């Protein structure tokens, strides 16, 4: 599949590759160059491949509360919450943002690779949970999206698009008019920087892309989207979260409201896991060498026993260190614990550190 911006990426000379069924831009000018543009100025990502659903009707809130780990009941209208869809066993179907327009209108935004799985899951839950008055719609084919990220994002929104976002708080959204079209704009992102996510139909997103490009915003590929999110310790589904990695194991309990009056799917399992302490957990690692720990590499204790694996690893770009997130057994999750990482034919010493490798600079 192609996003509405596909031909523009190709014309700009982006290196393209298949991702979640879409032919997506991985890199334009260079991953470090694009990464730094987002940290220092402003960059934009075509994230039209992401999935958007609508959950509407009088039963919408009750349904979201039941399937979503975070708090939707106390979320004010116009606010966004990050959380997960969990199964009864606590495994993660997907992680997502939920936009609350009102108690009867929610927009979940999900990972591209999981659109079909998530939608089928929600349909199944709707049947099983017997919640009445819920309308579930998959908007993904009709909604495109640009993420504009970086310290200059607010200024670009004002100067290039004529949209004053100075009053829009972190994790809130609005639905402004632009050139006669209604947009949905949230102050969110996946880079650790200030920025916005803009949702609109394809023809509007195409137009916005051109305007932002004209304004000097750096086009960025999925390559630096991953290095940016990684450096601030944000998880990627399939790496730090998965069908068989729970939010508690993913070190994301803070996004699970475990004391909802009626619970959510899997909340009892997760509450117990949190209480007892998970058997393994996602931690940050710093390698004491220039070698680079990559996803899948084994993590060993000092005697050489396998105690986990790397879930994401890089030579940091904003942080000049070899760093990783890793899923390791409970006895090795404390800060400053010494471990080893096997990289090809050698092992390298590493130490457990907080997984916020680079400080976020959100506007709050």
């Amino acid at each position, binding site marked *: 599949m192609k996003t509405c911006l596909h031909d523009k990426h190709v014309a700009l000379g982006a290196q393209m590759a298949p991702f979640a069924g879409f032919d997506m831009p*991985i890199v334009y000018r*260079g991953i*470090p160059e694009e990464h730094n543009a987002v940290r220092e100025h402003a960059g934009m990502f075509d994230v039209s491949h992401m999935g958007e659903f609508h959950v509407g009707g009088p039963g919408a809130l009750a349904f979201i509360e039941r399937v979503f780990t975070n708090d939707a009941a106390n979320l004010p209208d116009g606010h966004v919450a990050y959380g997960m869809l969990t199964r009864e066993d606590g495994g993660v179907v997907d992680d997502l943002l939920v936009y609350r327009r009102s108690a009867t209108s929610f927009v979940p935004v999900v990972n591209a690779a999981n659109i079909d799985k998530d939608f089928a899951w929600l349909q199944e839950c709707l049947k099983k949970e017997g919640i009445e008055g819920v309308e579930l719609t998959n908007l993904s084919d009709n909604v495109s999206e640009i993420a504009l990220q970086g310290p200059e994002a607010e200024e670009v929104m004002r100067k290039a698009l004529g949209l004053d976002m100075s009053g829009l708080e972190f994790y809130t959204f609005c639905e402004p008019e632009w050139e006669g079209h209604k947009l949905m704009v949230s102050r969110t992102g996946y880079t650790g920087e200030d920025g916005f996510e803009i949702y609109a139909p394809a023809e509007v997103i195409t137009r916005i892309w051109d305007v932002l490009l004209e304004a000097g915003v750096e086009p960025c590929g999925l390559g630096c989207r991953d290095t940016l999110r990684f450096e601030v310790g944000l998880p990627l589904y399939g790496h730090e979260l998965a069908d068989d990695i729970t939010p508690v194991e993913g070190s994301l309990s803070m996004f699970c409201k475990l004391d909802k009056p009626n619970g959510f799917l899997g909340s009892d399992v997760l509450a117990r896991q949190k209480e007892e302490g998970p058997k393994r957990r996602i931690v940050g690692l710093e390698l004491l060498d220039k070698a680079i720990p990559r996803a899948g590499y084994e993590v060993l204790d000092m005697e050489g026993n396998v105690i986990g694996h790397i879930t994401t690893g890089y030579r940091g770009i904003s942080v000049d260190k070899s760093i990783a997130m890793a899923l390791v057994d409970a006895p090795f999750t404390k800060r400053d614990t010494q471990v080893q990482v096997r990289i090809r034919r050698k092992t390298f010493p590493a130490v457990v550190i907080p997984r916020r490798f680079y400080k976020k600079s959100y506007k709050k």
Partner: protein
Amino acid sequence: MIYYSTSHEYARVEGNIAYIGISDYAQHALGNIVYVDMPEDGDDVTAGEDFGAVESVKAASDLLSPVSGAVVEVNEQLIDNPRLINEDAMANWIIKVEMSDPSELEGLMDEAAYKEFVAKEQH
């Protein structure tokens, strides 16, 4: 004389010594190189087997030796400055090998054959 392998390493041969690195095509395909994993002086390398890796931001790619022999020198400049390979892949060889079987060179491509090979791979 310069020889190339199908996995995009080159061997620049002077007498019994081969300077081994990656081709300009390979460095371009990899993008910014951030780390080079190299063997040590005195290690043996075997034709067709990996002796290290070059890593871009995104991924690690194994380095396969085009020839067999003993490593007599590694390019230590690459430890602190791996991007030298992006600047000039042919000048910035990775290891220097004393060949044990120079007849292995016959199984490699010359410059013209490699150019053709790359042109095909791009399609």
